[in-house]
């Protein structure tokens, strides 16, 4: 369930298709620029009801890294 929510956050924020390889997705791929990045972060904070530290916002550089970061907030993907 969390995985679906997590993927949907990327789809919504980056305006990408659901059939891309999310495991390889990283910052600067597709439309993942600094603007989309903040949208992604705020969507994730909203759907998982968390507030990320600024350092984690900066470190959130890929789909995989994001999973690692979310686990710090008790969100297991």
């Amino acid at each position: 369930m969390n995985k679906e929510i997590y993927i949907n956050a990327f789809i919504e924020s980056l305006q990408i298709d659901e059939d891309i390889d999310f495991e390889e997705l990283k910052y600067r791929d597709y439309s993942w620029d600094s603007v989309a990045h903040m949208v992604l972060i705020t969507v994730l904070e909203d759907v998982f009801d968390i507030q990320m530290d600024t350092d984690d916002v900066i470190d959130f550089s890929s789909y995989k890294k994001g999973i690692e970061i979310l686990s710090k907030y008790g969100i297991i993907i």
Partner: protein
Amino acid sequence: MGRTIFISGSNRGIGWAILEEFSNEEDVTIIAHARKHSAYFERNIEQIVIERGCKIIPVFFDYSDETQLNKKMDQILSEYRKIDVLVNNVGQVFESSTFLMMNYEKLRESFQINFFSQVLVTQLIAKSMIRNRSGSIVNMCSMAIYDVAAAQFEYITSKAAIAGMTHRLAYELSPYRIRCNAVAPGLIETDMVANMKPELKETQVKKSFLNRVGLPREIAKVVYFLSSDAASYINGQVIRVDGGGSGIL
């Protein structure tokens, strides 16, 4: 559904006038910050709520204490997921001294309250605005950054930082449809000005083309305007509200 407004330093002076101005708006919710509880503040809030039927939530924390600030802002943002307007009004002036005799600790404290903590609060609330793809930030600058004889080094430089912040945030946050502007008040009838030396006050009053001290509500109306759709194409501006003249004469 009405707007939700966060106003820092709203218990007196310009901050209170801003709160009063927003309280006229239909269905508004105002998160009214002050440094500490006071019966006077809570009584005034109660009266406005009865008169105008608005919702006002007083919140208390010290802008000089980042730990307290972060904890309180966490609670506020957990409860209020959508904040439409942020008014960064809080500010502190210390006793005047020359640059060469300035206490360095006072400089740090001035920047902590007048700038760093406001950056922190803005960063946190901006995320709420990004989620909602809209918002308006109004910062409180000062005409002292133009007319440097009027205030001391630490106040002027911290307010100049606010002006820079305003310009940069207008640029960075525009993609999310968030506007950022500032108001630079001249001499306004507040406690801060009441404690000024009479001769300095007189000199400053004479510099204003209108030859008088301004009123808190005259600042509040501009803040309200900047936050509203009536100012939808105004962005990145520092609007001087000083009766004309500061920095020119």
